[in-house]
């Protein structure tokens, strides 16, 4: 908790910038709900917020945590260590106490947790959480509701806006039943009125946030992707369930009919990709997606889409691999799959989102690129962003929305489906072809009319056509932005969800006097043209990513960057523990490289 001393604070109140609160219990305790309420509240209070969740891979039960970092300044990562730990059980305490900062606060259920005697590095606050919840709700409710009781305690300790919280309960529970809403309020009141003053010597209050900006929206990364697709005019898609992609298909399935569209749950991943390509072929830009194992199954059909030059959006919510791997952990090990996966040379565009807000804008941008270049576009996100909740400025939908169009206008006499001098524009069925020859769209190599051709010269030309449009896209990119020092000792390079931890690292290190910059790549294929020039301004280039160092000591992006720039200053910091980077890990890593 970074603190500031205000001029004349009330005796028991400490003003803080931000707080990291870790809630540790079991997955059925509803600790995700507390986290969700806190995140939503922060968003409504114009505060920054970021959450971090681990869910067990078991079907029900098992230890689970939810970490919320809320603050008044910019919140870049979910935080290395907690200022505040809530432990519901002995195992919660045993497993997580080492994550509590010195001088932090441990709030624990005194009925369930026994502390080690010699612990004196933090403040211990024991409350019989389960017992008091049962008392407040009456016996039949058992311990259900202890999450809301705890939220009441936290509301008191952090002086949270109670009216806003009650409003959120009402939205969440009001439509379910009166009883549920009443119980929530009862549990909350019991927690809020608990005489915590007896055991705590201070309250905390967040510094007043700047409320002048646009209103904030609070959501997780998968929701942001869906909303980006909807804003980008995607109305069709197909998928197959797999963690952590499934929530995207669930939401699309319920949202798309409102927009006149259709999302198909396919019999398998291959069918899902094929159905989506069928939609796109029919003139309806479509989305398919999955996580690593499912993407592997789609790759043959994606090769067809590159060859036939059909626009398509492919989402990969990466998880730990290989194979079934670590299905509920995070990794960035599908980068090369996204760029090269399939057979033969089949160039496509690959974008990587850096945080929840960026999930929205990246998905939206993907829809534009897919149309403009008639090409499959990958959007890479990962497990850590999929369910992480963040608050961000509400996008200006009026200016961003794209209404889908069906391009079935007549094609002129000289229409060539694969004109060598132009970027392909697919003519979907329904288009009248003045020249009288309707196009065949094929995975065979073809000439400008789309007709199969094994002519060696034509193959060379068509390969160039498919490659050059990707290069043309690279040429269209704005100059890459380097954060922090524009030249100096170290440039930290990343892609995807490592953005927050890297940014926070660079900010900290710069305030400690280091000459450091941060470059984060959204365009991972094609890479921006200006990388060589940027890299030359720094002594060391350190590429931070969550994948394996491989046979040659370089992570996947680092390998690509080395191949592209031949710059021997590029070093790789890669890890595969299935957890997001901590700031101190990156700092230590940079120092040791």
């Amino acid at each position: 908790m970074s603190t500031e001393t205000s001029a004349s604070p009330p005796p028991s109140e400490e003003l803080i910038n931000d707080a990291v609160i870790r809630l540790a219990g079991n997955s059925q305790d509803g600790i995700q709900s507390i986290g969700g309420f806190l995140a939503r509240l922060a968003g409504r209070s114009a505060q920054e917020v970021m959450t971090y969740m681990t869910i067990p891979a078991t079907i029900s039960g098992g230890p689970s945590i939810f970490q919320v970092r809320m603050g008044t300044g910019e919140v870049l990562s979910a935080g290395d260590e907690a200022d505040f730990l809530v432990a519901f059980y002995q195992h919660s305490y045993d497993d997580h106490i080492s994550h509590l900062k010195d001088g932090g606060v441990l709030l624990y259920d005194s009925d369930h947790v026994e502390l080690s005697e010699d612990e004196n590095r933090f403040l211990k606050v024991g409350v019989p959480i389960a017992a008091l919840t049962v008392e407040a709700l009456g016996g039949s409710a058992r311990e259900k509701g202890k999450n809301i009781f705890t939220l009441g305690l936290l509301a008191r300790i952090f002086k949270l806006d109670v009216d806003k919280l009650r409003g959120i309960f009402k939205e969440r529970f009001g439509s379910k039943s009166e009883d549920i809403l009443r119980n929530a309020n009862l549990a909350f009141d019991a927690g809020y009125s608990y005489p915590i003053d007896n055991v705590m010597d201070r309250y905390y209050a967040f510094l007043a946030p700047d409320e002048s900006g646009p209103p904030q929206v609070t959501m997780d990364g998968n929701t942001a992707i869906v909303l980006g697709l909807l804003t980008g005019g995607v109305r069709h898609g197909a998928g197959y369930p797999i963690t952590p992609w499934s929530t995207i298909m669930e939401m699309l399935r319920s949202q798309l009919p409102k927009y006149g569209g259709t999302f198909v749950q396919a019999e398998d991943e291959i069918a899902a990709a094929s159905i989506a390509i069928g939609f796109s072929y029919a003139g309806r830009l479509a989305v398919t997606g999955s996580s690593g194992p499912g993407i592997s199954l789609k790759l043959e059909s994606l090769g067809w889409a590159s060859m036939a030059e059909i626009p398509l959006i492919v989402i990969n919510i990466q998880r730990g691999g290989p194979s079934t791997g670590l299905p509920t952990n995070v990794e960035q090990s599908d980068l090369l799959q996204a760029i090269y996966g399939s057979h033969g040379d089949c160039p496509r565009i690959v974008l990587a989102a850096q945080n929840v807000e960026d999930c929205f804008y990246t998905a939206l941008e993907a829809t534009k690129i897919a149309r403009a270049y008639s090409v499959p576009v990958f959007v890479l996100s990962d497990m850590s962003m999929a369910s992480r909740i963040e608050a961000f400025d509400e996008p200006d939908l009026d200016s961003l929305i794209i209404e889908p169009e069906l391009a079935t206008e007549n094609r002129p006499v000289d229409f060539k489906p694969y004109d060598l001098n132009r970027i392909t524009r697919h003519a979907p069925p329904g288009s009248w072809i003045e020249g009288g020859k309707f196009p065949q769209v094929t995975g065979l190599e073809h000439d400008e009319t789309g007709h199969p051709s094994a002519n060696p010269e034509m193959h060379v030309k068509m390969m160039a056509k498919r490659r050059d449009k990707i290069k043309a896209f690279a040429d269209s990119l704005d100059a890459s932005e380097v954060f922090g020092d524009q030249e100096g000792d170290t440039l930290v390079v990343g892609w995807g969800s490592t953005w927050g931890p890297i940014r926070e690292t660079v900010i900290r290190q710069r305030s400690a006097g280091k000459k450091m910059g941060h470059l984060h790549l959204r365009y991972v294929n094609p890479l921006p043209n200006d990388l060589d020039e940027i890299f030359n301004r720094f002594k060391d280039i350190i590429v931070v990513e969550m994948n394996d160092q491989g046979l040659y000591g370089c992570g996947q992006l680092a390998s690509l960057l080395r191949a592209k720039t031949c710059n021997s200053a590029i070093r790789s910091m890669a890890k595969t523990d299935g957890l997001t980077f901590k700031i101190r890990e990156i700092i230590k890593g940079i120092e040791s490289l």
Partner: protein
Amino acid sequence: MSASSVPATVERGKITKKGIAADHPTWCPGCGDFAVLAAFFKTLEKLQFPQENIVTIAGIGCSSRFPYFVNTHGAHFIHGRALPFATGVSLGRDDLHVFVFGGDGDGFSIGGNHLDHAGRKNIRLTYVIMDNFVYGLTKKQTSPTSPQGFRSKTDPTGAIDRPTNPMRKLLSSGATFVARTHATQIKHMMEIYERAIHHDGFSVVECLSECVEFYKGAFDAALPRKGGVFNVIDEEEHDVTNMAGALALAEENWPGKFGVYYQKKEPTKNENEQKLIGSARAKTKGASDLDLLKKTFARMK
């Protein structure tokens, strides 16, 4: 592949034999598939759909070359996946007439699972499986419908696996129109195609189509001029809506009967999805896309 043959005249609003034909087929002389194509042309000439709204889709195999020979919008997709591709086309565009052509490998082997699900979902399209009991494009390997004892390059001493029973497989897929015909019987083929096309739902036809190169004489038992019997289903006796009766027909000894085994009107996925859209639209009172989005974002505040 022969050079592209641009049709001399394609008149909008009128399908002619000349205007609907594209490349000269690359099939071997004598291949049964020529007749399938000819019957398809004649049926289209009769039905006169807008030419630009016809889509011909195929996977991989000899018969899957089909789209190149038809002058309509067409797609030559990957092996075994023509049905899911066509599912996207059909569900994406209610104005299109969607046709899928393929062989026994595409339909019963690599794409077998898709057949079950396109049938179960009752996707509005017509699928013709040109069954020749052998892999021809790859030059004589055992196919899922090759009979036991058939000598191929992968079974030089004769196939040992039991073949798929195509009609039983099609019936159990949930397809709402299932029929069987023979490439030598042009009139029968045309009649079956027309009925399949008029069926509102997933209509599938198994068409025995001889591979003269790798499995000559495979279907002689059903060919009168070779001494066989072309036995047509008597629909006075067989109720096409009776699944048990259809399954009994599927169990008949080789060469079995030809005609419509099963036909029943069931709601298509196309209809069901439109219903979902209709009720979602009614709930949101026809709000614009922008209004809908704004509402969703408002819930996230």
